[in-house]
């Protein structure tokens, strides 16, 4: 059984990773749109 405090940290870390992923995907989409506009 993982202690509750560690669980909370893992939980937080997962949220952080997801946030980074969202930002990355958003930037990729923005670049793809810009590229399409240039062409």
């Amino acid at each position, binding site marked *: 059984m993982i202690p509750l405090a560690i669980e909370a940290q893992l*939980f*937080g*870390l997962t949220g952080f990773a997801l946030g980074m992923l969202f930002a990355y995907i958003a930037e990729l989409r923005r670049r793809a749109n810009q590229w399409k506009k240039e062409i």
Partner: protein
Amino acid sequence: MAFVEIYWPVFLVALIIGVIVGYLVFRPRQRVRLTDSTPIRPHMATAVRRSGEGRLITDEVAAAASDVAGDILRVRVHEQLPGASGPPDDLRQLKGVGPKFAEMLNQRGIIRFDQIAKLSPDQAESLDAAMGAFRGRFARDRIVEQAQFLARGDVDGFEAKFGSL
């Protein structure tokens, strides 16, 4: 799943921090694009080089030799694109010409509508062949025809045929 109920604010805060940090890491920064050719700025329009030939005496001799050789072989050895005769036009006004395509045309010394309008079918074809990803646009979008309208300043005729500017 009891801890989810207890720690959801932790997750939420971490998610927000993640998005902010992600934005800071992946945000667009100033980019430098390196190209082989110098971009043509409006004030440089009159100085656009019409061909890649040099101007030294050896280049002149080489050009003369290829002229004679071309005459004998009956092939065109020099670019015969009509030169610019005034301030540059915005080539993007032509339907089917975007910023990239206009830049490619500019790099080949084409900056005015009348230059395109004066192209012979042969010249338009050879220019089209050099347009890489945009190959075929000249015929598809009738760019020479469009340019003839705009070179004359016949906006009404242009709009009647190709839609509003």
